[in-house]
């Protein structure tokens, strides 16, 4: 993967947040979860992502709160490191290297490459360095399951329980003794006894195990070889995927594919509570240390936060990834968000920049029934026009023995609601499946045109036409135009596969198996046909900008052809098995994913140049069939030739395991790291009310700055606006009066002052006395050894601290007398 030194394939945006069990912090305010190569910190109340802890260079495989300091968290990753973070501020504290890959947050589980998993205890060396190599490893258990949910610590860490296959192993640390219990493969009634997950009771010696057939067994007396015993609970109809005890041990939570969270009363197991209709199969269950919140991860990349009264309080939704993406990956031209199939029957709009699901658009508008084997409407195709004003979707339902049901829907963007509104529904637009669909790209043209190709041998052009108002005496209530068919084209009865408009919309290329036909959309005249050694065309793509005279196509016979449309001849062709050909809408670059020997290679080239700009072998395993160029918000200024193609847009692709990957350059990564490091220094200021106010202030200031100033821009000097603030920030911490005193002064300085000093004149005398007292305090505190103030830039500013004016001192005194409880209330909220 390091062929090009600085370009890497990374998980960024839209990664799984349900990959591993999330962790709720001790105060139940934050939720930490592994997400691709970073750890995300979400707020449990607002569902917002607060921090993105970056630093790992491979998938994060586990997150755990540090038991001795509940404000720090460990994360481990497949890159072989365990990192310690301060998650409230997003600082990386320590990195520990482990010789092998770590997958489990329980203790640390190292993996040898032969898919044999071992549980090892890691002794973390105490050292001040940020990077420490842990050498002391001792194997605890061998042959454990690769699923971290199958290994768990028991009561107070006295023992560890691990299940693999049909065996449960309990290892007592004190006695250094392991007990193994195995079950029969399946019983007579067809139940499957394979273990799926394990949970330990926090106070009692009771281990709960989940099984493939939906049973939960509660094991007791497991410190005996033979006299162990278990009881069985059975509610789930298929495998129990996660189990968790509440911190007091009064309840046991279980979940599985039924998407129902079941809460069992410990020792009164026939009393259960259910939280049904959670939307998708439960993959993990986590409970906050105070027991106030539960959270469940779901298979549709969602985390649900549930209050302990079994009520959903928040939902954190990631990019929904189904079994397959019927629609291509698309970019919504307006919101620049990624659009693809989401929930069944929906299109999801996912912001890659903010890594957040924006909204779901219900396309099918029918209730989805959660039952396997039912054939229901699915969105199979979707297309945006260039301006993002129109969205075309195709949904189909194929029932056994029934005719194919097809609907073409056209959606107009509504400025008022800022969402798409259904404009036209065309039922049965074609007689057979639609194979391709595209809008005319020309932004300047008056009419928008949609072309769809179908297996019935026709392609149809659809055009927006104002509704004729001849039918009614009254003018129709909605005079908006609707779509209708403009032209039906065919070519020798062949089946059209792909269609593509040229950049200016003057040409339409439609491939009919091995023949490419070029049409003029203005007159619907067949201009020319281009053909090639017989094999069906797989992809068809016009060049952009300076290369717009080229038409590129790939065939099943491993050929990439480039035609010159001016000469109507083949410009060049090369032999490669291209699975996906893609044009960057913002540049001339084209990307071709080639499948070779089980791996996918990427070539980026310009049609006019014979040499590829960039090539990378073995981008990922398996075939890549979905990819998209996403325009960047701000351009990169990379001068390196090989990474220039990434300057304007970013290439995202889906692997066969439905992981969304992208390419990143070293400079980009450095910039990201730098910004987070910058944060480290600034955020080392404690999380005080000052910080909140200050941070806001600074953001405003930054907003005015030139965004291009990059790294240096963030080092802007602190606000100098008010003298009081300067006073606060530039005086060394140890000489400052008490915070409550300062706070009021600070707040006062922010208020629009209305002088009413006369009102408090009589109180001045008394306060003068107190003032003297505090002065003495300040004197005495000066004798202490000076400590470095943590305030950024405080050191330099110290000398410049001006003396307070008399008036200010008086004001300070007056302010001190005021009742500030309202402020405290405000800050608390």
């Amino acid at each position, binding site marked *: 993967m390091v062929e090009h030194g600085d370009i890497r394939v990374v998980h960024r945006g839209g990664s799984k947040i349900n990959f591993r069990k999330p962790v709720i912090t001790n105060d139940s305010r934050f939720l930490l979860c592994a997400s691709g190569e970073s750890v995300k910190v979400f707020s449990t109340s607002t569902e917002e992502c607060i921090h993105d802890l970056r630093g790992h260079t491979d998938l994060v495989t586990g997150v755990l709160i540090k038991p001795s300091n509940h404000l720090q968290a460990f994360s481990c990753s497949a890159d072989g490191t365990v990192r310690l973070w301060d998650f409230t501020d997003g600082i990386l504290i320590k990195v520990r290297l482990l010789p092998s890959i770590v997958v489990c947050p329980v203790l640390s589980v190292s993996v040898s490459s032969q898919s044999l998993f071992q549980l090892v205890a890691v002794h973390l060396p105490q050292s001040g360095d940020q990077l420490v190599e842990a050498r002391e490893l001792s194997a605890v258990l061998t042959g454990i399951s690769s699923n971290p949910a199958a290994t768990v610590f028991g009561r107070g860490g006295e023992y560890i329980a691990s299940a693999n296959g049909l065996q449960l192993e309990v290892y007592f640390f004190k006695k250094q003794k392991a007990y193994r219990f195995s079950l029969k493969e399946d019983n007579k009634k067809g139940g499957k006894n394979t273990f799926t997950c394990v949970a330990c009771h926090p*106070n*009692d*010696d009771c281990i709960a195990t989940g099984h493939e057939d939906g049973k939960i067994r509660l094991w007791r007396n497991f410190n005996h070889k033979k*006299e162990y*015993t*278990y*009881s069985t609970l059975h509610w789930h109809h298929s495998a129990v995927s996660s189990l968790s005890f509440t911190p007091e041990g009064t309840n046991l939570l279980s979940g599985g594919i039924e998407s129902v969270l079941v809460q069992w009363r410990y020792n*009164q*197991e*026939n009393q259960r509570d259910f939280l049904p209709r959670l939307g998708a199969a439960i993959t993990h269950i986590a409970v906050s240390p105070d027991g106030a919140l539960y959270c469940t991860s779901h298979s549709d990349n969602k985390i649900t936060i549930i209050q302990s009264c079994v009520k959903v309080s928040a939902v954190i939704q990631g990019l929904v990834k189904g079994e397959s993406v019927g629609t291509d990956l698309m970019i919504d031209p307006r919101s620049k968000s990624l659009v693809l199939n989401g929930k069944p029957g929906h299109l999801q709009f996912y912001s890659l920049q903010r890594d957040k699901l924006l909204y779901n658009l219900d396309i099918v508008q029918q209730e989805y029934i959660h039952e396997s084997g039912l054939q229901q409407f699915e969105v199979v195709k979707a297309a945006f026009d260039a301006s993002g004003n129109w969205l075309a979707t195709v949904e189909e339902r194929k029932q056994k023995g029934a005719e194919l049901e097809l609907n073409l829907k056209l959606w107009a963007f509504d400025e008022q609601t800022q969402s798409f509104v259904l404009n036209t529904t065309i039922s049965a637009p074609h007689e057979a499946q639609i194979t391709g669909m595209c809008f005319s790209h020309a932004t300047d043209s008056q009419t928008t045109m949609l072309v769809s190709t179908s297996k019935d041998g026709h392609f149809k052009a659809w055009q927006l036409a104002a509704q004729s108002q001849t039918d009614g005496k009254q003018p129709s209530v909605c005079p908006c135009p609707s779509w209708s068919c403009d032209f039906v084209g065919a070519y020798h009865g062949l089946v059209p596969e792909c269609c593509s408009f040229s950049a200016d919309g003057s040409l339409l290329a439609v491939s009919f198996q091995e023949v490419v036909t070029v049409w003029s959309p203005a007159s619907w005249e067949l201009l020319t046909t281009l053909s090639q050694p017989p094999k069906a065309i797989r992809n068809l793509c016009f060049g952009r900008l300076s290369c717009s005279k080229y038409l590129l196509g790939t065939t099943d016979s491993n050929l990439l052809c480039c035609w010159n449309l001016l000469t109507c001849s083949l410009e060049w062709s090369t032999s490669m098995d291209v699975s996906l050909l893609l044009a960057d809408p913002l540049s001339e670059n084209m990307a071709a994913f080639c499948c070779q020997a089980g791996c996918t290679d990427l070539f980026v080239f310009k049609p006019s140049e014979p040499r590829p700009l960039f090539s990378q072998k073995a981008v990922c395993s398996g075939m890549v069939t979905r990819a998209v160029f996403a325009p960047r918000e701000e351009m990169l200024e990379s001068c390196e030739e090989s990474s220039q193609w990434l300057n304007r847009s970013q290439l995202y692709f889906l692997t066969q395991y439905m992981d969304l990957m992208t390419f990143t350059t070293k400079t980009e990564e450095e910039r990201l790291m730098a910004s987070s490091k910058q944060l480290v220094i600034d955020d080392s200021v404690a999380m005080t009310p000052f910080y909140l106010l200050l941070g806001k202030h600074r953001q405003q200031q930054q907003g005015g700055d030139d965004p291009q100033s990059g790294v240096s821009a963030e080092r802007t000097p602190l606000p100098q606006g008010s003298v009081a603030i300067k006073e606060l920030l530039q005086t060394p911490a140890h000489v400052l009066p008490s915070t409550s005193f300062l706070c009021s002064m600070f707040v006062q300085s922010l208020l629009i002052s209305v002088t009413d000093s006369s009102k408090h004149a009589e109180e001045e005398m008394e306060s003068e006395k107190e003032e003297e007292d505090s002065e003495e305090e300040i004197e005495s505190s000066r004798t202490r050894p000076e400590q470095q103030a943590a305030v950024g830039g405080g050191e330099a500013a110290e000398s410049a601290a001006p003396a307070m004016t008399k008036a200010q001192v008086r004001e300070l005194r007056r302010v001190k007398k005021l009742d500030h409880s309202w402020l405290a209330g405000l800050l608390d909220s």
Partner: protein
Amino acid sequence: MGEFKVHRVRFFDYMPSAIRAMAFNSHTERLALVRADGALEIFNFADHYFQEKVIPGQDGRAVEALCWVGQRLFSAGLNGEITEYDLENLRPRYTVEAYGGPIWTIGSNKQGTLLMVGCEDGTVKMFEILKERIQFQRNLERQKGRIVSLSWHPSGTLIAAGMMDMIRIFNAETGHATHRMLVERGVGASKSREVVVWSVAFLSDYTIISGDSAGKVQIWDGLTGTLVRTHLVTKWDVLCLSVSQDESSLIAGTSEGTVVQFQFISSTVDQQEEEWVRTRTFKNHSHDVRALAHTETAVVSGGMDTQLVVRPLLDKVEKNTQESAMRKIALPHRSLVCCAKKAGLLLFQFPDHLEVWRVGESDGHGKPGDSLPVKRKPEKLIQLKGKGGDHIYSSALSPCGEWLAYSTVSSVRLYRLQYNNISITKVSKLPKDLCLGHQLCFSSDSTKLFASSRHSSVIVVALNQLECKYLHTLKPKSGSRQPVHLLCTSEDGKWLATANTDCEIHVYDLHKRKLHCTVPIYSSCPTAIAIHPTTSHLVVVHADQQIFEYSLVQKEYTEWSRKLQKQGLHSLWLERDTPVTHVTFSLKNPAHIILHDMFMFCIIDQSLPLPESKTLLYNQMTLRSLPEQERIRHSHAFKICKNFKHVMCVSLLEDHSLVVAAEPVLHYLSEVSKRAQTTLSQFAGQYIHVMGL
């Protein structure tokens, strides 16, 4: 093994009766079990769960509870009587009226000196156990409402009594109630119905455990009378409880057919404090579990579905041994069918009546596997109802089919049958000595009737057209007091063999009218015996599935038997869990021994080599697919046919056709559920209708 014409008899619709109560004696390892028709059965758990003794019931006699006191067995029932059984003569020894209305429960103290019963009128009555009888001692303080369950604290000072809606604790010395613990009623509709505490158990640490009709198993502190824990086990009733000897495990039977186990275990490894935790659930019954016993290694349960289930606790036994296999005992371990070989008649014994059937006829021939057309349908000739309400213990049909005899607890009856125009006449004058017949048997020429009597003796009665005359009594020398449970004669009329539950087998010479020999005693009880018609070898099959052949002439084990013992039986043969109940011989081929158990019948060909431990035991299907030469090489002495289920009888008729009385399982099960439904509805009305008793 040759071809047989098989009469598949499916008209013996024998239905076992529901299990009502059981008691386990851990010293003798005997389980006493009582069925809804009042029949008592004793199983020997030390000897492969063999059903040693059966005492038939009586019409209208509902036994509710059983109790072992040492070797003595007491029962009490809704007729308000306490009965002690005479296990040697297989009859009730005496009954004592308790004068408290129907009795729901019976219990004894640990010392075995006192017996207490809980009565309908709310009294707990104490009886002193004397050597030969019991004597009323006193009443405990009388309560309002019936006493449904009782349990004595091991120290003997306190008694817990389960009643309607409450549990009372009595001081055994003063007879006063010390605590009154209210049991919560069920929720919903059952709130208005009073809750019945079906079962209580008093543990030595003064914990009381109760099971009630609201589906709860509750744990109480018996000293303070407070509730410790409630386990809601079922929506319906918890009918019975049983605690293991060491009080570390408890089982509760429910009316859903489940048995729930609770264990007394500490919640954490190093802590000493223990509590009762619900652990396993066994579901082996389709209907109510009415009776439970917790042996040291197994859970024994029985109920409405008539099966006795022995479910070993896998943490107490070695895994994958014979002991760890679950057993279901569905049919009695004795033959209820008698076949008159010469006449082609079958006698079926039901608890309260007998049926004589003539097997069907067919003259067709066919290939193996064909079903032949029936020329004459089987017909029921006679149905004979038992007299006096006593149920039938044993019955016999003479080989010629002209004589029929049956015995009850109190008497023996003999009938003469005629078939040309069917008539039955009772032989009115029977010899006085013939009053007890545990087993009945006719000689092969139908001239003599043998009836086993007290102390393993056999009474011989001569029969002819005019009269029946007592000839003599054969007595063993051993002086065993146990009853004879197997009786057989030889074809030539010379030998008579008896087997008793002391595992003794005596052979008498009928010509000399004296004991000929005693077969060396084997540790396991014989389950079937037969004398070979030509060689006069006695074949004995024991409860542990061993087979012996004893030459009566030489008075020693035969060569074949020695070879069999030396080589050992096949492990699969030994693993079968139902005893062989009948042995017979082929007239055509003297080397053939035909025997059967509940699931198979087997023809042992003594001329073929014995199966090695590695060879396939059940090989009939594979043999059929082999060519002739191969077949000979692979065949061994045990030819087993598993085509039938619930085989009640396999017998050879004179014309060399085989009679197999077997029930199709489906039929059997549907019958159980049908019957259980009707009994359930009867049971539901039980509270009310027993008041009148």
